[in-house]
């Protein structure tokens, strides 16, 4: 076995070992032991991922697609189910991002959650989540991919419902799980469509045979790819399967960071990038993906401007950014989409961590309306939030600027109707600037709220009565509810270290791929996409310069508007809101997607369920089938029972009578 395969397996198995060790031994460890153990497992995983990167770069360009097979599950009748990993630049890129960012999130959680009962359980789940995601991105065939896909859904359910005595949290977990299972079904059915034609589950084998098995535009392939897209949309929270993502904010803040930055939502983007040979043969499906991504980025951007829950604003910004990535990989800008995935992982994890620190300072309160003036009370958090915000808004030279503009540049370069996506992308970027800096200006600028003043005098605000921020229900701080207090980054070295590292990455991450200067990611991913017709494209210099300038102007304009509305003229936003009441209602109610799904899917199925239970089950099954059978048996047996008198002579007489009848029959017959 080559060192590359060993490193790949180690990357995968370290978090699994961590899960098992923490799950079995975590309670015996003193203090924060479980947290350190979980972080160490992820550090080992990240180190192995770097090892895999080094050994992969040691191979020749053509050899950089290595399949590591552990054993066969079944190898018969045309099914080749193996436990195999595919190690190529794409999967190594993903494991680096996933394990690296997850490691920092683990580090942050060590301090952030240490007052929670269930600390040990949290780290066991967290390691399991990362293991599932690594399994998903390393999968070498459809079977392992589906397993990893389902594991991620299960892990997200456990973590979103981590505070399991909170009704809103368990409902959010169930919602996420149900929508993800819908995606799993899409993925499995899509796999069937493709497997039927190519006859292998192996990913590389599928791609190789797909060119002979499918002519371009084959209906089965298009159907299969659209079903794969259903899976990708459910995981990546794209319209119309996105409603679980904002609700997932019910989980602890590090979980939100993990779901949004490193694991879970990037899975859909990865899937489309991984399946690019199939999507290039089914351009209709790819176009559907691009349009979904474009719609999502616009809808999510508009909602993010209206909602006031801090974490939900960031959640919608994630949806919007994933929309960019989805659009990019569907439109053939693979390296740009994955580049954005990486920079987004950095700044979104950073934003969530900073938000966690801010929420801790507010003693669990998440409403932007109640925040303000934290700039002096939380200087470190403010700095991190600002860096994350600048990167998210795409201000040069922060990382988000380079990745977002490259996506839009390559999409614009495809010409034709892709111009609509190009324009929509810049509209989305404009919205991004507004909502990001709306958060920053409202939370950190303006008049300090009492909590901020308390903190300025060196005392962290504690809630007298703990309540659920969504419903106001009173809670205790025992297991199944949030602990008594979370920590602010200013006072917790582990959180500071994690946020500082991410802030640095959010600043410099973009330099990996400066247009015309560096092409690290392009070159690195080349072996995975060597067969793609859309990979190597060189937009004209004029368009490049125009795009960069436009991106800068749009981002700065968004920020300027945010400044004008929320800092310079404090009453303006209320006036705008009352002027555009209808629009605001649509945005703040999330475009009524929840209500739409409720009316179209939830209520009809609930009605059908109660019909099945009350009418079909009671009348047909219980009444006719079960009742009818028992009735017949009962009537028959009561008739037969009447013959059993217990009189011996009566039985004897019956026997004699029977013999006589038989005798007569034979006499007649003779």
């Amino acid at each position, binding site marked *: 076995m080559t060192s590359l395969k060993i490193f790949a397996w180690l990357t995968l198995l370290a978090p699994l070992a961590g899960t098992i060790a923490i799950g079995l031994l975590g309670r015996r460890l003193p203090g924060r032991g479980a947290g350190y153990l979980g972080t160490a497992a992820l550090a080992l995983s990240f180190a192995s991922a770097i090892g895999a990167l080094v050994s992969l770069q040691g191979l020749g360009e053509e050899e950089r697609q290595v399949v590591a097979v552990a054993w066969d599950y079944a190898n018969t009748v045309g099914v080749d189910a193996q436990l195999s990993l595919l190690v190529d630049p794409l999967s190594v890129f993903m494991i680096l991002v996933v394990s690296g960012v997850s490691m920092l999130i683990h580090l942050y959680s060590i301090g952030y959650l240490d007052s929670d009962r269930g600390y040990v359980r949290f780290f066991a789940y967290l390691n399991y989540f990362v293991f599932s995601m690594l399994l998903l991105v390393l999968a070498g065939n459809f079977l392992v991919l589906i397993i990893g896909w389902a594991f991620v859904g299960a892990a997200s359910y456990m973590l979103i419902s981590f505070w399991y005595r909170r009704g809103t949290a368990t409902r959010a977990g169930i919602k996420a799980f149900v929508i993800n299972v819908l995606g799993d079904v899409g993925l499995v059915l899509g796999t069937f469509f493709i497997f039927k034609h190519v006859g292998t589950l192996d990913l590389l084998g599928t791609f190789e045979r797909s060119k002979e098995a499918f002519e371009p535009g084959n209906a089965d392939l298009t159907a299969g790819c659209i079903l794969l897209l259903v899976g990708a949309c459910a995981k990546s929270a794209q319209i119309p399967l996105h409603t679980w993502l904002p609700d997932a904010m019910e989980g602890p803040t590090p979980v939100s960071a993990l779901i949004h930055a490193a694991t879970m939502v990037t899975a859909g983007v990865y899937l489309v990038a991984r399946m690019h040979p199939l999507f290039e043969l089914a351009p209709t499906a790819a176009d559907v993906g691009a349009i979904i991504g474009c719609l999502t980025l616009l809808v999510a951007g508009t909602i993010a401007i209206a909602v006031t829950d801090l974490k939900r604003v960031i959640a919608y910004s994630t949806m919007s950014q994933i929309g960019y990535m989805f659009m990019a990989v569907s439109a053939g800008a693979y390296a740009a989409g994955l580049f954005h995935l990486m920079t987004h992982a950095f700044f979104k994890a950073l934003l969530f961590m900073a938000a966690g620190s801010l929420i801790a300072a507010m003693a669990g309160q998440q409403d932007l309306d109640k925040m303000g003036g934290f700039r002096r009370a939380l200087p470190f958090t403010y700095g991190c939030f600002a860096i994350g915000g600048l990167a998210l808004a795409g201000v040069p030279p922060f990382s988000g600027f380079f990745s977002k503009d490259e996506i839009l540049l390559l999409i614009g370069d495809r010409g034709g109707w892709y111009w609509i996506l190009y324009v929509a992308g810049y509209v989305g970027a404009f919205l991004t600037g507004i909502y990001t800096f709306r958060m920053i200006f409202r939370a950190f600028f303006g008049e300090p709220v009492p909590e901020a003043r308390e903190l300025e005098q060196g005392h962290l605000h504690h809630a007298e009565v703990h309540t659920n921020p969504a419903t106001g229900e009173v809670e205790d701080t025992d297991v199944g509810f949030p602990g008594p207090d979370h920590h602010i980054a200013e006072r917790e070295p582990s959180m500071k270290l994690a946020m500082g590292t991410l802030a640095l990455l959010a600043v410099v991450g973009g330099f990996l791929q400066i247009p015309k200067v560096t092409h690290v990611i392009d070159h690195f991913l080349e072996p995975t996409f060597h067969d793609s017709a859309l990979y190597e494209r060189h937009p004209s210099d004029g368009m490049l310069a125009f795009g960069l300038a436009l991106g800068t102007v749009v981002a700065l304009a968004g920020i300027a508007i945010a400044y004008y509305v929320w800092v310079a003229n404090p009453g303006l936003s209320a006036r705008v809101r009352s002027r555009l009441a209808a629009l605001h209602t649509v945005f703040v109610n999330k475009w009524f997607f929840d209500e739409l799904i409720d009316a179209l899917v939830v209520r009809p199925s609930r009605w059908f369920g109660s019909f099945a239970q009350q009418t079909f089950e009671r009348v047909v099954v219980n009444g006719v089938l079960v009742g009818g059978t028992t009735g017949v048996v009962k009537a028959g047996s009561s008739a*037969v*029972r*009447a*013959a*059993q*008198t*217990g*009189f*011996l*002579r009566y039985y*004897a*007489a019956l026997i*004699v009578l029977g013999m006589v009848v038989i005798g007569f029959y034979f006499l007649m017959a003779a």
Partner: protein
Amino acid sequence: MDIGWYLAVSALIFTIGAAGVLTRRSPLVILLCLELMLNAANLALIAFARMHGDPDGQIFAFIVMVVAACEVTIGLGIIVAMHRGRLPIDVDELRELQG
């Protein structure tokens, strides 16, 4: 002699036995009547064996006797056990098998 006479006697004894089984209430008498029925059947078997000149019927009659002996032994045993258990010696009183 014509086979008919033998069969007539056999049928008569069988009918007497059957009537006894149906009318009497004492288990002892019922057993006796059962013996009558079995022996009536034996008579018919032997008569037919003679008519056909085939020993199979006679062998069958022997087997019937053996079975009858066993049956009487068990039947009497049960009656003795009933007597010891102070149960009524009357088949109409013993009707716990009623459904």
